[in-house]
């Protein structure tokens, strides 16, 4: 298999070179491939950085633009909307979305609107307004738009969706870097960090890096036990609670004497 792969690359090499000859290439990296959530986790900061390789080392006359997107695992979600019923605010209407990323942060070197037109932004899902959340209920378009806006706003205020413009720094039109902050309540799973190179309103190059966010150590053990062995986990919780309560009262009684 590896041998075949090697042959393929050799055979395709001229093509690849030809393809890359007239287009710039991205060499991206991230500060951490794995983010582990341990007991003291209060969020993390991820540095996305890299270089732009131009064909034949020719610099462009115009400054290039970079957009980075960090995206978490997508899941189906149910969004509920509260309404006033009999003087109380209760959950009334709801809408289903088939793929909502648990985390989405986008940063760009200039405001997105000035970088790409709406069509391009929609194709590459650039910006909070262009997320493809796949609403699955047969609601009216205006209701769907309202629910989608509500969902994005909710996630944004929880710090799980974020859009920043001007936060990607580009040095000498070659090196770029962007910082994205990840809150403590981030969902675990497989993340992708995408980098887009944009010139004259067109996406010229795309590069992707995978990142894993997972609970580690004791936190991972507790979360896994609760899911895999719920009965034993419950039993241990009860026993620990009993033991602790008993030990504490015995300790205080001794102190009083």
């Amino acid at each position: 298999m590896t041998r075949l792969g090697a042959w393929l690359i050799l055979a395709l090499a001229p093509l690849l070179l030809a393809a890359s000859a007239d287009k710039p290439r991205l060499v991206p990296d991230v500060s951490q491939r794995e983010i582990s959530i341990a007991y003291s986790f209060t969020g993390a900061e991820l540095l996305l950085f890299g270089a732009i390789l131009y064909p034949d080392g020719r610099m462009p006359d115009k400054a290039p633009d970079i957009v980075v997107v960090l995206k978490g695992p997508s899941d189906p979600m149910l969004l509920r909307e509260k309404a006033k019923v009999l003087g109380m605010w209760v959950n009334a209407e709801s809408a289903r979305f088939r793929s909502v990323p648990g985390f989405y942060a986008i940063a760009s070197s200039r405001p997105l609107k000035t970088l790409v037109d709406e069509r391009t932004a929609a194709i590459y899902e650039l910006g909070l307004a262009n997320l493809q959340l796949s609403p699955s209920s047969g609601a009216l378009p205006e209701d769907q738009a309202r629910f989608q806006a509500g969902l994005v706003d909710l996630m944004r205020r929880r710090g799980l969706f974020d859009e920043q413009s001007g936060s990607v720094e580009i040095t000498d039109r070659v090196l770029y870097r962007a910082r994205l902050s990840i809150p403590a309540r981030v969902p675990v799973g497989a993340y992708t960090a995408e980098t887009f190179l944009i010139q004259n309103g067109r996406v010229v190059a795309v590069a992707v890096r995978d990142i894993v966010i997972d609970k580690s150590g004791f936190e991972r053990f507790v979360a896994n036990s609760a899911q895999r062995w719920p009965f034993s986990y419950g039993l241990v919780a009860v026993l620990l609670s009993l033991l602790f309560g008993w030990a504490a009262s015995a300790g205080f009684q001794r102190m009083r004497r």
Partner: protein
Amino acid sequence: MHIYLPIAGLSVNVLVIVGLGGVVGLLSGMFGVGGGFLTTPLLIFYGIPPTVAVASSATQITGASVSGVFAHMGRQGVDFRMGTVMVVGGVAGSIAGAGVFRLLQESGQIDTVIALVYVILLGGIGLLMAKEAATSIGALRSGKPVPSSGRRHHPLIASLPMRWRFYRSGLYISPLAPLALGFLTGVLTVTLGVGGGFIMVPAMIYMLGMSTRVVVGTSLFQILFVTAVTTMVHAVTTQAVDIVLAGLLLIGSVTGAQIGARMAAKTRPEWLRLFLALIVLAVALRMALGLGWRPDEIYSVDPL
């Protein structure tokens, strides 16, 4: 000082959680109530998911009631026969309540129902307690003896079939009444994360007519077992028991309970009861306002 809660999935300030446990423990030491009715709403206000708050609060109550049960057992303050009947009812209630909890969760009405039940229960009991405490304080001030109503059980309970003798409670009544009372508190434990002492104790005194000497011990006995079973029920069904959260709450509450017990010894019981009634009413009022006021978050999201 922050710590990550593995099940709740967010990081919390250790001092806030331990302090919260401490305040609840202080109250439970002062008034002899479990304090679950304060833990769950306060955890929810702090941002812990409601299901995790309810489940972990039940776990914490188990640990917090151990010492009380031992103390009451030592002075013959537990009617084991009555307690066992109520535990059986409580376990059944806890399991049945888990089904109701699940249905409400799926229909998205769990938060509203929790808040409504809190408002009704706490509001009603708070008013009764305030009235009772105010009457005794008034009687104390004017020097008249406190009007005492004779201890006897409700006529409805006397009409139930199949009577058993409960020696320590000094009762000859049908076990169906305590069974039903146990069932009700079991439902409350699994859905609200409360021990249910604030319902059980008045009901045992005024409806069953139990001897007051065994009321608190027997209700603690029931709470100990039913909260333990409820932890199991939540661990298996909602998987929302957060050991770390329950442990932090326990550290605070066992310490607070010791301080509270010493403070209670220096205060007149009538004033204590009035003070507790006001706290209960404040929680009920806060929940009622939460229902009526336009919430900050109109939208809420659940994974499917």
